Structure formats: C-alpha cells, structure tokens
C-alpha cells in the first residue's frame, strides 16, 4: 500500500500525527503537492497553526483545490482539530477566514468554560475519552459526535473530521485511528 499523506501547511507539530501512524505500522509522507494529494490512498489534514495562515498556505500551494477535487471524487480525507475546522465554510478565527467549504458549517470561538479548552472529554455517542486542545469549535449539520455539547466529529461524503487529537489520546486514540483506517 502506498503512503498516507499528511498535508503540509508549513507550521507546527506534524511529527505526532506521523508517529501515531507509524505506531500502526503505516508510513506517511508530508506534502502539499496537488497531484500527490489527489492520488494518495488516504489524506490527513492535521491540526496545527492558525486558520488564516493555514488557508493561505493551502491556497498558495494548490493544496486547497486538490483537497476540494479529492472530496468531489469521493476519496477519503481525515481532518484533525484545525483540519476539521478548515473543511467547513467559514471561521471566526483571525478576524474571519473563508475556509475550504467541503462541508456546511461555521467555526466559532468557544464562549463557555476555560478557553482554550484543554483536556480529555468523553465523546458521545462513542463512549470514549479523547484529548481536546482548542479555542474554536464547529457548528455544522454534519456533526456526528459531541463532547460536553461541543462538536467532536463531523462527517459528510468522504470527509471525516474530529476536533480532538486521536494521535494524542493514548490507547483510545490509537484504536480509533486504527478503526478509521481499516474502514477505508
């Protein structure tokens, strides 16, 4: 099997995501090349940096269009944290950013509790705890799971997005990633 592609948008911690796939016995490549994004068997849009910087980088490299094309073709994409948020239409972050628009929905700053929201929360209906680290959250009719009332996962077509970090959620996260990959 060819490599899982981790979309490179130029900032932050992608090592943890790659390490998580390596622990599942999978090799990954880090790339923003449009043809590679369209071709790869599995694409992960990871959760690092800020919405504006990420969108600028994805647009400049042509990765944004490649992700839209891949989604239209029904090929699987996993979005993690910011990667989930980028798949929606608009984010309040950085004064307002137009995002990829693969799915209906918008991203808003958290208003309740401590922000950033840091820590483990139980995800309904999956009945496991996963690790969250975010200040913004999705509102979408594609929401399929929540944690304390906040969107924890969205899915539509070939896109699956999670607000939590499966790569940082210990054994539960590892199992979740493995089951996610086995369905593809």
């Amino acid at each position, binding site marked *: 099997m060819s490599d899982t592609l981790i979309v490179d948008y130029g900032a932050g*911690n992608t*090592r943890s995501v790659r390490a998580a796939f390596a622990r599942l016995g999978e090799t990954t490549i880090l790339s923003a090349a449009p043809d590679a994004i369209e071709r790869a068997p599995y694409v992960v849009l990871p959760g690092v940096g800020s919405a504006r910087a990420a969108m600028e980088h994805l647009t400049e490299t042509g990765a944004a269009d490649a992700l839209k094309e891949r989604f239209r073709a029904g090929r699987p994409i996993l979005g993690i944290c910011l990667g989930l948020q980028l798949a929606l239409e608009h984010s309040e972050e950085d004064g307002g950013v137009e995002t990829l628009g693969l799915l209906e929905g918008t991203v808003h700053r958290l208003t309740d509790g*401590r922000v950033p929201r*840091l*820590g483990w929360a*139980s995800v309904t209906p999956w009945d496991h705890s996963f690790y969250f680290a975010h*200040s913004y959250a999705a509102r979408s009719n594609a929401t399929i799971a929540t944690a304390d009332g*906040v969107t924890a996962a969205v899915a539509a077509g070939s896109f699956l997005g999670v607000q939590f970090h499966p790569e940082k959620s*210990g054994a539960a996260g590892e199992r979740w990633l493995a089951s996610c990959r086995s369905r593809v």
Partner: protein
Amino acid sequence: MVGIVPFPRLIPCLDVTAGRVVKGVSFQQLRDVGDPVELAAAYSEGGADELVFLDITATLENARTMVDVVARVADVVSIPFTVGGGIRSADDAARLIEAGADRVSINSAAIARPSLITEIAHLFGSQAVVVAIDAGGGRVHSHGGTTAVGRDVVEWAREAAECGAGEILLTSIEQDGQRSGYDLALTTAVRDAVRVPVIASGGAGNAQHVVDALRVTDAALVASIVHDDPTQLPALRDAVQAAGIVLRPLPEVLT
C-alpha cells in the same frame, strides 16, 4: 448552556538534564531517575493525562539534547506533553514544537519580554503556550525562583493571558517540596483572574492535597508525591477518585 468542562488533569513533571530524568533537593545533589522516554511511557500507561518536561539546566548544549529527547518521546508516547526550561525565543519554541512537543512553557523570558508569549501564540496558537509563574510571597520570581521580580502574581497572570498564554502553570516556591499541600488561596486568586486553565504546582504530599487542588482548579502537577515512580500513579488516581473527583476513564488495556 452546556458545561464545557474537560476532566481534571493529573500531570506528572519530569526534571531533565543532559538527556536524563533527575531528582534532587538541590542542584548539587542530583540523582539519576531514568530515561525520559521510558518514564514518559510508563506514566502514560499509569494514567497520566499529560506530561511536563523541564530542562533544569537549560544550557545551549542541553537545549540541543532536549530537542532530541522531545523527538524520541513524541515517537513513543501518545499523550500530550509540555516542554519548558531555557526557552528564550520563538525559534527555541519552534524547534521543540516541530520536534513533537504539544506545548512549550516559558517563564523568565516571558517576564523579560511579554511579547514572546504573543509571538509563540501567533505561530502555534494559544493552546501551545504555557506561562509558568514561580510565586513567593504572592510576588513573581524568575530564574528558577531565585530572583524576585517585584510583580504581583495575579496581575502578571492576567497580563500573560492577555498576551496570548493558553495556560498558567502556577508554582508556589514556599510550598514546593514541603509536602504540606498546594497554595490553594493563590491558585484560587489566579484562577479567578484569568479565563485560561490554571495548573496548580508545588506542595503535594498526599492524595488529599491533590483532591483539594482539583476542587479549585483544572489540573495539578505531581512530582515527588509519586516518588518519581510511575507505578505509584494508578494508586494516586484511585485515591483521588475515591475522594469524589472524577478523572477520565482509562481504556481497558487489551493484551
């Protein structure tokens, strides 16, 4: 309105120098405790919610070693971890985050130049910046707690959060190592002054102290209470939960 409250966190802290985890009452009497990767994996297995690594020597040479330690930890350990000690610039922070750290903790450099907080938050998000505050007599101390800065702790915590800190790690210098409990009054004052999460640190001597801290704030740093022994962590978790604090449920280990 929904209650957006994650589970309270227990965060073991590992002091690192020259690529090894050490323990000592003073720098003159450091004892080698073990390999950071092995200890981190063991704490993770024991139910730690996160980890903190502190480079306690923070020389240039140690900083390079720390980047290597971070990369090795990130390859093996699948819970979040923060790295602190000797971070003076956004480049220092970037090297650690790109090596696999989820967050960096800054202290003296943030006191000297609060805009460093903003720079790192801008690059990696607020959730990636922890501001560590060493408190003595309600005043801020820098350089490992040795230098009084003459600032009020609560006021500095508020400013740090306004600059973009995503979390405050509050250590009581008086309580640290005393094993008589966290400084709950100061922790509560800081908690009430900021909207970001606050980690209590310094002074835990028994499980009840941890319980008391988790009743007033989001997370507790634990070090000597587990005797630098990861196998002590499950018992601490059990005792904390027996006192009525609900920690995250651990997945059953599949063998």
